[in-house]
């Protein structure tokens, strides 16, 4: 018995059982060992049985007990019994008077019960073929209910079946009782091995400073059990995504632009050659402002946009024709894309080759639902330099998305009002192609009036959709109106 490893309860129980020959019930174990907790007794008995020191006898019984509705039926009488009394006492036991005397929830099922008992409806009246038999059956049912609990073997199976089919009238449950009898191996254990040892749960500084821990035993814990998760601080998943994207841009030599949400329709749309009657400019898509209602723009810019929109100016374009309104241009709005800031940066720095990016919020007039919010994050990068081409843009996109973790990238034609050519970018995401951004080269109607010297490659994407995919989220609101338990349970991205 070198490998004998007993817990203190097992030691105590075995020492009590040694030399006996009877079956020990849980109750007997509890009183002999002076325990209150059945789980300790069962655990000790099972532990000893597992090591072959006692024999465990398991006796399973199926017990029929009274259910929630059964208790009520015992107090007020079974539904069929109340109905039968009413039929017997009533002068006019008809269907219509039944519905006056009983709730609808009882009348319906009640008729069903009565029919099974042999009560039929004849010309609207409820009539029993054999009133004595009905009386007897109802009596048997009531008696059965009041006789519970009982072993299932002692019950009439037909009665159990019929009552089981009714809601919570009875409950049939299995109970297990254990008894133990000491085995020869158990009797052979030397009593010195059954002396209980000090068992240490918590290791404290006081304990470690004393010497008592040296002979003591450390409690073995069930390592599979859950503990409480400590409260901790962490980044919002959107912040984590933003930081990843910022570092990719910074590594690739892009500088960061930060600018205001409040902008003019002129810079947000006219400068980008979006026609003034474009549907996206309407009140149902863009947030316009009461304050500031209108924002002054430089005369030179208004004139440039007017001529480009109306006739193409000197860009060689036909323009949109129609009439350009400076008042529309000056309207204050919440930016609908970060390109409004990129284009102003280019207007201020038309000669200097640059690579700039932004990751920031934009606004669209969307009602809040599972897939829409009125504000969300957009990322955008541009390259303006001599020799910037569509081929360079596609190469840069491949580098950018590879750094994000998506090495497989493909592009196909797309349409955006201010780029030509335009591209849709798709990446391989978990085995399937996923649209993850748009790109293109700014139209001459956009760059030439501002005196921008070189072609401008641009691309962008919304960030929330990626966040939702990564987090397996089907409701975008969770990102901005978060459930804090959900937020804390998210992986660090």
């Amino acid at each position, binding site marked *: 018995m070198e490998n004998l490893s007993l817990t203190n309860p097992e030691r105590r129980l075995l020492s009590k059982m040694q030399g006996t020959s009877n079956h020990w019930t849980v109750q007997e174990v509890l009183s002999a060992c002076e325990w209150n907790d059945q789980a300790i007794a069962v655990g000790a008995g099972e532990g000893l049985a597992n090591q072959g020191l006692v024999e465990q006898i398991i006796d399973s019984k199926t017990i029929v007990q009274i259910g929630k509705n059964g208790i009520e039926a015992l107090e007020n009488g079974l539904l069929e019994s109340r109905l039968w009394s009413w039929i017997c006492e009533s002068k006019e036991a008809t269907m219509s008077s039944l519905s006056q005397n009983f709730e609808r929830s009882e009348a319906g099922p009640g008729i069903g019960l009565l029919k099974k008992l042999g009560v039929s409806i004849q010309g609207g009246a409820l009539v029993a073929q054999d009133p004595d038999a009905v009386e007897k059956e109802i009596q048997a049912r009531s008696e059965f209910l009041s006789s519970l609990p009982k072993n299932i073997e002692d019950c009439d199976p037909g009665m159990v079946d019929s009552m089981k089919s009714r809601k919570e009238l009875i409950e049939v449950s299995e109970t297990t009782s254990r008894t133990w009898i000491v085995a020869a191996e158990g009797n052979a254990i030397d009593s010195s091995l059954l002396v209980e040892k000090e068992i240490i749960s918590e290791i404290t500084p006081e304990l470690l400073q004393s010497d008592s821990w040296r002979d003591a035993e450390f409690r073995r814990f069930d390592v599979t059990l859950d503990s409480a998760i400590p409260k*901790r*601080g*962490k980044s*919002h998943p*959107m912040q984590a995504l933003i930081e990843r994207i910022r570092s990719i841009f*910074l590594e*690739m*030599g892009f*500088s*960061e632009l930060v600018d*205001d*949400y*409040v902008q003019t329709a002129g810079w947000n749309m006219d400068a980008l050659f979006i026609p003034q009657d474009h*549907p996206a400019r309407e*009140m*149902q898509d863009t*947030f*316009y*402002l*009461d*304050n*500031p209602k209108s924002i002054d723009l430089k005369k030179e810019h208004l004139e440039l946009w007017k001529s480009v929109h109306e006739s193409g100016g000197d*860009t*060689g*374009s036909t323009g949109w*024709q129609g009439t350009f309104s400076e008042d529309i241009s000056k309207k204050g709005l919440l930016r609908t894309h970060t390109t409004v800031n990129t284009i102003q940066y280019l207007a201020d720095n038309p000669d200097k*080759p*640059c*690579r700039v990016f932004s990751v920031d919020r934009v606004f669209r007039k969307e009602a809040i639902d599972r897939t829409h919010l*009125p*504000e969300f994050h957009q990322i955008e990068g541009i390259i303006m*330099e001599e020799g*910037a*081409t*569509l*081929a360079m843009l*596609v*190469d840069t996109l491949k580098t950018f998305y590879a750094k994000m973790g998506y090495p497989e990238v*493909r592009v*196909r*034609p*797309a*349409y955006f009002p201010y780029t*030509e*050519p335009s*591209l*849709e970018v798709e990446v391989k995401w978990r085995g399937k192609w996923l649209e993850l951004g748009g790109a293109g080269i700014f*139209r*001459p*109607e956009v760059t*030439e009036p501002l005196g921008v010297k070189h072609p401008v490659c641009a691309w962008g994407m919304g960030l929330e959709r990626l966040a939702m995919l990564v987090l397996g989220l089907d409701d975008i609101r969770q*990102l*901005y*109106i*978060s*459930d*804090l*338990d959900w*937020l*804390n349970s998210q992986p660090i991205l």
Partner: protein
Amino acid sequence: MPTITVQQKTLEMLLELQGLTHNIEEIQDKLPLLGTDIDSCDADQLVIEIFPDRPDLLSAETLSHSMRSYLHDDYTKPNLNINTGDVVFHVDSELSNIRPIILGAVVKGVHTGSNDEEIDIFIKGLMEHQEKLHFALGGGRKKVSIGVHDLETISPPFRVKACEPDTRFIPLAMDEEMSLSEILEKHPKGMEYADLLEGMDKFPVIFDSDDKVLSFPPIINGSHTTVSNTTKNFLIDVTGWDRRACETALSLICLQLTARNGVIESVTVNNCKGEAEIQPSGKSNIVEVPMRLLPEIIGINLSEEEIRVSLQRMGMSLIEITQIGDDYPDSPEKMSMPEKGGKIAIVEVPNWRFDILHPIDIIEDIIIGHGYENLPSSKPTSSMTGVPRVDHNMRRRLRESLQGLGFTQIQSLTLSNDADQFENMRWTANHEVTRITNPITIDHTLLRHHLLPGILRLLSKNKHNELPHSVYELGTVVRDHKNKNRVAFITAEKSGGFAAVRGRIQAMMQDLGASFDADSKMFAEISAIEDGEGPWLAGRSAKIEINGVHVGCFGEIDPTISEIFELSVPLNGAEFDVDLLLEVLGDPV
């Protein structure tokens, strides 16, 4: 984006008319490369999204026309074949102020279908095409409206007159005569489009030689000219204010009918200025494209033959590539301009390609025709240093500090309302408030000045979760219409109170390099808020000044305020101005 639904068997029939075989598998692979998104494609139906710049792909017929060149190498011509016809429209001069542009065409011998089902699909497609064109070209019939009639039911010549509102006829979908003003008030189409004629005292009406009404543009057609199952010969009228949109619409309806072997006959319109116009023009537009754009903008060199084939695949046609003289600059500033001694491609473009505004648009078509997948590789050459936003480190340090203190970051909407930002918090607006004209709800009428209200709203949505909650937001507010950065946090905990929040503030100030020692270079001085200013509980809240600059406040939230946000737990927190923190604290490194 507009979507169209096309029956595969219609495409099959249309291609068969041209001697071609429809291939469903090829569509799934290759049609997206033309610049259309396939929503779904099965054995019965094709549903595709059409980019708003391509109104020429909005019907089964015009789509099949593009498919011939792009997928089947059956290159189509960039113009319409037109026979001379004898139909005449007389337009009253008064129309110049009512609906100045009137165009027309006749198309005869259209193959509408071999059975009733096919004919029904055709008629439905014809109606849908008109509606889609009204939207794509006309913004809903304003600039352009189209009428299509059964030519056999009417007798030319036609007159377009400016009529009094009491002029009567039987409009489409009605059994009895109505006056023009009744139509605008009672007829569903009249009510939908009445605003287009607002302020006019006479309305446009087209009559035939028997004074029967063809149409009351842009509202409704007459009932007796309706296209039926037996119609083979069609009269088209297009009216409006925008000549280019009207011509495009007319060409596209003609193109739709010629894709079914219809033969176009010209009409003569004696327009409101008294000039005789022969319509439709059907002629292609000629665009000169500097060839330098291919290497300079796209980064590719293509041979003349490759350019020719690419253009043909896109339904255009290359007339020639010519060398130009020395009258041009060496390196032109405008994309539309060729360089000295350079080459230009002279390209014929169908007049229904509404999206072609500039030579760069032809360049895009050449590249689509050539295939985006065939672009060469080209890396950026200049090396540049990426510079992050100026407050990049301050923002990172704040996040590290607060997360180290056990705060979870949240984000909330910038859109807020007066109650939450000001009244509920006992704050007054000391800066201009950015206000929305068309808010989505009464809760989102302005841009926030503070972060704390958003955090309180979030906490009140989290009452079902177990305490404590420690959350912070590093966010943007807008004051005087300018973005400002702020940081705020709140702890909802059963006990702790002022001592706990003051401890956190001490930790945070240490993390940021500020000191509570008056002799230090970054002296953070704390003084009590006694008057219940803002949401703070008097005597249990304080403001912080660093080197004399007021950077923020912290303390216990007054339970009166918590109650407004339906929170009955002790709250403490803080809010700081990040821009000021950066200004006074700078960067320790």
